[in-house]
């Protein structure tokens, strides 16, 4: 299993049956592969779909049916289509139970920075800002460190924010971390890591509960 698959598989376990969820680009789009068939989750897409199904196999694409990342998708039984204003009424109106987002940086108090690197990357805001600010629960799925090995979990974000204090849970290939009023709480660790490795690669002190830290 690649590190991305590991993150997606663990993230899928945060989803409850019947929930409305939205999947950002990258790792979040892999989460449906790990949802149990019985979960009856409704996947919302910003471009006006509630009830996205699996991605199309080659040759089955419908030219009028893409997700917000321009992938050809299917829909599940009970799906619906609507315009972009209504789509964002679902999001800003608080009807998305969980928003899974990738990130560039996330801070100890749950600030999220994932839309702009000034002077380098600024393709636009898309739906991320509204999802981050208004989904009932925001879960960040991300590699624990940057490609250069620098921590992504920081005392404060250095990049411009997407939303302040919005992140509730961070899932990486090494750990599941909850953002709490007391600080970052290490909830679970990956089988193949150690507490020392997680601590070393996280630029913020971690709290943990009593007893053994569960593994995933």
């Amino acid at each position, binding site marked *: 299993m690649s590190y991305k698959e590991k993150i997606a598989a663990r993230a899928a376990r945060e989803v409850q049956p019947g929930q409305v969820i939205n999947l950002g680009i990258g790792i979040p789009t892999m989460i449906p592969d790990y949802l149990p068939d019985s979960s009856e989750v409704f996947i919302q*897409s*910003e*471009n*006006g*779909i509630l009830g996205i199904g699996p*991605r*199309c*196999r*080659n040759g089955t*694409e*419908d*030219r*009028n*049916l*893409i*997700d*917000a990342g*321009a*992938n*050809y998708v299917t829909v599940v039984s009970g799906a619906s*289509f*609507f*315009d*972009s*204003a209504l*789509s*964002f*009424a679902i*999001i*800003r109106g608080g009807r998305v139970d969980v928003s899974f987002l990738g990130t560039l940086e996330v801070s100890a108090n749950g600030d999220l920075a994932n839309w*702009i690197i000034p002077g380098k990357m*600024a*393709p*636009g*805001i*898309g*739906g*991320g*800002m*509204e999802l981050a*600010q*208004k989904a009932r629960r925001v879960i960040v799925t991300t590699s624990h460190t940057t490609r250069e090995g620098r921590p992504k979990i920081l005392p404060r974000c250095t990049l*411009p*924010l*997407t*939303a*302040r204090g919005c992140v509730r849970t961070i899932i990486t290939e090494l750990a599941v971390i909850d953002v709490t009023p007391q600080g970052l709480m290490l909830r679970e660790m990956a089988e193949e890591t150690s507490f020392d490795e997680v601590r070393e690669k996280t630029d913020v002190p971690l709290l943990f509960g009593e007893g053994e830290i569960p593994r995933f």
Partner: protein
Amino acid sequence: MIDKSLPIADALEAVHDGHTVMVGGFGAPGTPFLLLDRLLARGARDLTLVKNDANEPGTGISKLLEAGRVHTLIASHIGLNPTIVAMMHRREIEVELYPQGILAEKIRAGGSGLIGFLTDIGVDTILRESRQVVPVEGREAILELALRADIALIHAARADRAGNLVFAKSARNFCPLMAMAADRVIVEAEEVVPTGAIDPDRVHLPCAFVDHIVALDKLTPDYGVLPQHVL
């Protein structure tokens, strides 16, 4: 009987230099590729375009942008078009970027006779530096003004001759909102049927918002499945 259908050659007579043009579509679905090709051929310049994205290089509004016909692009995310991102960085075009649902709501407000609306989206971010921030009941909100256009170019799956529209699947997106928000609304439709042939319960956009219908007799490859997005 009202018949708003028009040959494509005449449909874009109303577009002039300096106009603001809203273009439906999210990526390819809903993009009126043939109307855009005709607009390019017509030679209008100094346009302000409003679209969710910039399509992809060589297609849709990207042709107009690449040809230097566009002064300002108002969009949400142009990440699938590196050509236009590079033009933005070289300052060859002005680009105004909004959160996607805020862009949709600005258009909806424009189409609903409103002056604007108040939102807390982005109020804690750098967006506030370029927005009007106002106090509302003890907290801060961003004042977003409504957006209207001279022209809207829309793609529909089906239209009747009076202008009632049906969209297909994820091709609906910004189309009905933009059709509400422009002084003149030009629709290309894959199928044009007699008025009354669409069940009133199935009309996605009522005919009051539509001025002209162009029947498409064939779809170009731009409308098809894009090989770069096939698994």
